[in-house]
């Protein structure tokens, strides 16, 4: 069990990204291979690993150089910003092992001499770590695969015996193939415990460096290609550790967007440590919203880094002042750091590292990158999405709130989201558009998404004025959201229409009341006439009845008379009845 523990012991290199990817650095007491083509940074990588690793812990180290003189390497090391104390000759022993120029090889040889020298110079002085820079140079001389394998084994045994940690560099092509095949240098890959391949390629004129851990016996490691850059601080390896996004660490604190109306729309603002994406065509006030956000952050006292890829800082400060966003005092007080990366060339990776460094140096809690889509400039298109993603991940892991903008030429292209494809990982996504109608362009703002927030799904009109940024209330009519003059016109038209209809209604009411009154009057007249008619009819009926009675009476009178006249004729009358 103790063996297993010893097996897993590692030495940190002080190169954060690499230590993360290798889960703690190179294997201690083992031999690791660093391979790569010309100019990949093998020597720098190993130097830095020594100087910021064991040398920083004041261990004695040895640097065996097969291709350069110790002076060249020392000069090289001094050109970086590393602690020169680490180069103290007592602690870092250089051995110039360049083969003699006029060397004649006659038959087989071994490296026992080298080991004897190392034993004399290094082991005796308590060295813990040895670097063999360009060991392939020595192996090439052997010119025989069997000899190579034997000598590598000899070296390994010797290192193992003395419990030394070793780093060996060897040249190879991109795929890890040796420059000169058949010599056995490729055997290094199989024989050593940890193999790291460095890669340097130029894509569309932009330099891209990356490293990959090809193998690591007895340890887990990051297997993907890890980008890195080399600058005055040496290697800066991209971090591969993804931030944890569990609910527990999520912050519920809201921070203002800098636009009060927008804060209301967002139920109080953005979440702290969230990422906000602003997309839109040029001139849709992306930078203005960034400025408002930065300004609000500075007023709260949050240290802020504002990175502009588009224009010079002075221009932004001046332009934003015209819409009532004043940044200069914050710059003066040191709360706000504005950096123009307009002139910055290089890979997306190096820009990411530059951004990270800025944020770290400034201890910023807010990061504004305008526009982040600048990362995907020529030569960076393939790498930029992951870079943007990592930037957001990294920021989140440090509780930094990120606002980035992305140029979106075509507003219909929302499905395709952003060139950087960060729309999926951004927590809030605001889209800015121009709404063109009736000869006017009006800025529209809509919240496409805002995680954890109930938000309005309507497009609002964004109005810029000297007083600042304001969002106009949604004005929708007939299924359309209206803006600008159209909104004003429509509002006015509707108001007038409402007044018109009121007047019309009153008029109608009056007219109808009149008509009704008239009809009522007519009705009254008619009724009285009807009454008269009825009375008349009544009287006519009475008369008729009266005259009928009269007639009966007369007829009866007449009959009586007749009866009286015929009195003798009684039987005939009976038969008539």
């Amino acid at each position, binding site marked *: 069990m103790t063996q297993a523990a010893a097996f897993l012991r590692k030495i940190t290199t002080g190169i954060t990204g690499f230590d993360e990817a290798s889960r703690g650095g190179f294997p201690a007491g083992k031999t690791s291979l660093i391979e790569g083509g010309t100019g990949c940074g093998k020597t720098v990588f190993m130097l830095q690993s020594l100087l910021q690793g064991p040398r920083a812990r004041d261990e004695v180290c040895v640097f065996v150089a097969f291709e350069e003189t110790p002076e060249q390497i020392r000069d090289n090391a001094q050109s970086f910003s590393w602690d020169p104390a680490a180069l103290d000759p007592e602690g870092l022993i250089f051995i*110039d*092992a360049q*083969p*003699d120029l*006029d*060397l*004649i*090889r*006659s*038959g*087989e*040889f*071994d*490296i*026992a*001499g*080298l080991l*004897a*020298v190392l*034993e*004399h*110079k290094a082991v005796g002085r308590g060295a813990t770590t040895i670097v063999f820079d360009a060991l392939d140079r*020595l192996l090439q*001389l052997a010119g025989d695969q069997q000899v190579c394998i034997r000598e590598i084994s000899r070296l390994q045994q010797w290192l193992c015996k003395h419990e030394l940690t070793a780093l060996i560099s060897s040249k190879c092509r991109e795929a890890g193939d040796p420059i000169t095949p058949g010599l056995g240098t490729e055997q290094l890959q199989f024989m050593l415990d940890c193999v790291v391949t460095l890669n340097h390629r130029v894509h569309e004129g932009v330099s891209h460096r990356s490293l990959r851990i090809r193998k690591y016996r007895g340890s887990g490691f990051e297997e993907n290609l890890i980008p890195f850059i080399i600058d005055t601080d040496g290697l800066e390896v991209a971090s591969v550790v993804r931030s944890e996004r569990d609910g527990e660490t999520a912050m519920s604190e809201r921070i203002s967007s800098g636009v009060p109306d927008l804060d209301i729309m967002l139920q109080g603002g953005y979440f702290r440590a969230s990422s906000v994406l602003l997309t839109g065509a040029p001139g849709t006030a992306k930078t203005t919203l960034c400025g408002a956000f930065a300004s609000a952050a500075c007023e709260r006292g949050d240290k802020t880094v504002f990175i502009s890829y588009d224009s010079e800082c002075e221009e932004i400060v001046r332009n934003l002042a015209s819409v009532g966003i004043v940044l200069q005092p914050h710059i003066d007080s040191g709360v706000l750091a504005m950096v123009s990366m307009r002139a910055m060339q290089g890979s997306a990776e190096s820009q990411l590292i530059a951004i990270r460094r800025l944020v770290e140096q400034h201890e910023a809690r807010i990061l504004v990158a305008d526009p982040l889509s600048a990362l995907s400039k020529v030569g960076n298109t393939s790498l930029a999405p992951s870079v943007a993603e990592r930037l957001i991940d990294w920021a989140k892991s440090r509780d930094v709130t990120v606002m980035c903008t992305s140029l979106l030429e075509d507003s219909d292209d929302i499905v395709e989201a952003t060139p950087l494809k960060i729309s999926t990982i951004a927590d809030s996504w605001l889209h800015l558009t121009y709404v063109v109608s009736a000869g006017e362009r009006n800025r529209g703002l809509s919240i496409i998404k805002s995680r954890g927030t109930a938000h309005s799904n309507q497009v609002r009109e964004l109005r810029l004025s000297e007083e600042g940024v304001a969002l106009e209330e949604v004005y929708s009519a007939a299924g359309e959201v209206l803006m600008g003059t159209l909104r004003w016109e429509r509002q006015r038209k509707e108001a007038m229409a409402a007044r018109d209809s009121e007047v019309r209604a009153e008029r109608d009411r009056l007219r109808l009341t009149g008509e009704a009154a008239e009809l009522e009057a007519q009705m009254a007249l008619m009724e009285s006439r009807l009454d008269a008619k009825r009375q008349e009819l009544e009287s006519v009926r009475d008369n008729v009845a009266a005259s009928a009675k009269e007639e009966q009476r007369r007829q009866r009178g007449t009959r009586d008379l007749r009866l009286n006249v015929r009195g003798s004729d009684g039987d005939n009358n009976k038969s008539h009845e």
Partner: protein
Amino acid sequence: METTTSPMNSRAHASRLTLYIAGDLPNSRRARAHLEAWLERAAVASDDVEIVDVLTHPERAAEEDIFMTPALIFSGDSGRQVFVGDLSDGEYLGDLQVATSDSHDRV
């Protein structure tokens, strides 16, 4: 031919041969045999050759930057010539003969 360091007379020579070996490793053993055979052929006195074992005298190897063993160093007025390997390739030793003949009478 002893595996010890520097007989004084050898150093006094204007030119000298030094064979660096690593103990009893096969290459070193072969190199000694090859060199001895060659010395015989070339009628060079074997005590003119110094043999240094880097395992017992690593400081000598460090001084002379001997990293590959065996190594035969010829140093003379014309400079320093390094032969690396078990000296099995006699062709190269012929060069050495020319070099040494400057300081030794040709037989």
